[in-house]
């Protein structure tokens, strides 16, 4: 399949207080953006086990996004700092084993950044589209 005629499937983990609220604000502001990103809400990016990223790719995602509060703004003070360190390491590892870096992104989107959320979604979708469908270590049969 060529990179241009497929719709990437993207799983996003958003913290409840900043990015999820920012995505809600994009909605209330009627900002339009691609529909490829499916959000899983967690209380804090610190909750995002880096292995979720691996798991999402294994289970059918073409791209993964983790988004939380800007540094210093975490509702729980420090969760996003831990997330940044852990996911930074994971990104290095994934790249090293040959996962296209365009498949994983992390962003800081505050509750007031509805427009930034749109930009982040667009960038994530565009990158995943360019990277093409993820076949890599995709699981053949996905049960839930």
């Amino acid at each position, binding site marked *: 399949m060529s990179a241009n005629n497929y719709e990437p*499937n993207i*799983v996003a983990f958003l913290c*409840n207080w900043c990015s*999820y*609220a920012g*995505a*809600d*604000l*994009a*909605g*209330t502001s*009627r*900002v*339009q*953006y*691609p*529909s490829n990103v*499916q*959000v*899983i*809400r*967690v*209380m*804090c990016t*610190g*909750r*995002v*086990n*880096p292995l*979720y990223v691996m*798991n*999402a790719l294994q*289970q*059918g*995602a073409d791209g993964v996004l983790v988004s939380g509060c800007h540094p*210093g*703004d*975490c*509702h*729980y*003070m*420090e*969760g996003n700092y*831990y*997330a940044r360190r*852990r996911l930074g390491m994971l990104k290095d590892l994934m790249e090293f084993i040959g996962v296209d870096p365009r498949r994983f992104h992390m962003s800081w989107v505050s509750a007031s950044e509805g427009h930034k959320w*749109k930009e982040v979604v667009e960038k994530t979708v565009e990158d995943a589209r360019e990277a093409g469908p993820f076949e890599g270590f995709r699981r053949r049969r*996905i*049960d*839930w």
Partner: protein
Amino acid sequence: MTAKPKVGVYICHCGINIASTVDVETVEEYAQKLPNVKVARTYSYMCSEPGQVLIKEDIKEQGLNRIVVASCSPRMHEPTFRKAIQEAGLNPYFLEMANIREQCSWVHEDTGEATEKAKKLITASVAKVRLLEALESKEVDAEPAALVIGAGIAGIQAALDIADAGFKTYLVEKTPSVGGRMAQLDKTFPTLDCSACILTPKMVDCASHPNIELLSYSEVEEVGGYIGNFDVKVRKKARYVDFDKCTGCGDCASECRVADRFPSEFDQGMGKRSAIYLPFPQAVPAKYTIDPESCLYLSRGKCGKSPKCQEVCGAGAINFEQEDEFVEFKVGAIIVATGFDPFDASRKPEYGYDDYPNVITGMEMERLVSASGPTGGKVLISNGEEEIEPKEVAFIKCVGSRDESVGNEYCSRVCCMYTAKQAHLIREKLPDANIRIYYMDVRAFGKGYEEFYDRVRRENVRYIRGNPSEIFKRGNKLVVKAEDTLTSTPLEDEVDMVVLGVGLEPRADMRKMMDLLRLSQSPDRFFLEAHPKLRPVDTATDGVFLAGCCQGPKDIPDTVAQAKGAASSALIPLARGKVTIDAQVAEVNETTCRGCGFCVEICPYSAIEMVTVNQFGHEVEVARVNEALCKGCGSCSAACLSDSIQPKSFRDRQILPQIAALGAMK
């Protein structure tokens, strides 16, 4: 938990907000076929009374035990639907919401795409809801007492309100006297009330109130616990004066061997004090304090043959052996009212504050015009030989505010008005002086402020729109270099005196408070409130509230209003006597925990501790969560290599199926 999941999916039209973009009937049909789904329905407004009844009846009639509501953001109506299903006899946590409005119908125009996405989101919700567990909120008793940190006008007001409501209040003040910045002010804008006259009665009240325990010259050292049950440890610094014996007569200060040698903090360094001192005449408590750094005996071990203060104190109150004491107590709520620091004018070297004695700050001006100030209220400057009255006076506003070069983008909100007030006070004292105010904008937003500003302008105070670039000396004069931006005229304005309208900054020592109470800073570096609009006195730490300038620059009426707001918020747990603890907290599987303590290190609330348990005869260390402290962020669980600590409702075994459901629908 053992019952097979029977899921009801409720798809909201939200009028046309959802239904005009998402094909709700198609989604309904799709949802009916999902595993474990017993019922799927659509309705125009799920949150309405009939919408809720629909869900409740299905729960009762169809025996549903898990509910998915596909509608707006859970941030909007999760509490509504939790309550609804609880009324129908279900555990309120057996609910999952699929956000098909804010994150679907409102952001995607294409019906096909939006409908597909709605299906995915609902699938993921169904995948998760089946695995949710029943949770119970717990209540714990709240200690019927409060701690107020900082005894400026904010702290005093908050303490008085809580104490008046009948609760014990500990009021901790770092300096020897209550009163704070307001005590230093001369008159208050725009009413020109004497600041001390309106403040001192409150100062006296808070010292004499039967419910207030005033801990002056004291600092909070440790805070543990959580809302309803904070454990507080306060250091009472040694005054070297027996608090009970001191009569406040002042003989010690006048006889001190280094009398009137040290810059008085209260007079902004313009007046002098002795090593043993009362910060100002109306100080509360009216008890003397020895500054160990300036006292000869304490700093050098010798003061003449014997310390003079000791000799003259009739009450025998001087005690050089005194040591810091610690007091510990429990409170249910805490109010932070630690105030601000005035901007340090040295950080704008172009204004020559460090070089020219006649360039002074607004705070110094307050002391200069005050009848109790170092000059007895006379506005005097030195011309090098004698003290004279200035003829030409310039004010510069926004010094250290609205200035990215010093890192302060914000407006300090009081400088416009205090410069106007000070211009008025100078006008009263020096009817012939030429007064001008350099400004960027005039912000006179409060009650009576615009009127006051007009009045000051009519008093022949010139407002020049321009931000001076430099102040330098020419002969005996100070030259203010600026541009009048309304007429595009460059100016070199020769004056006798410049008053810098310095702004308000977060306190330099606020980090200590942040660490003690787990507070955050907003971008302006003041303390961060829980919500800028709807929870302006709350913080992210439950049971800790903000009052006054520690949260952001404020004038006195706003400070008092916020203090009263903080007091009433703090009173909620105290008056109720109980606090509810969030049910979505972390839980440890003690049989798999390897005791590494990563979670303990990570937890920003110190909610996890290591405990020793006996496992089949072996003593092993495992983590344990204090549910009252845990906020359910889950940072611990992402670091747990054995997945032994998990936040309820956000467990790996609840999230991984969500991921799979989204992936499987590709």
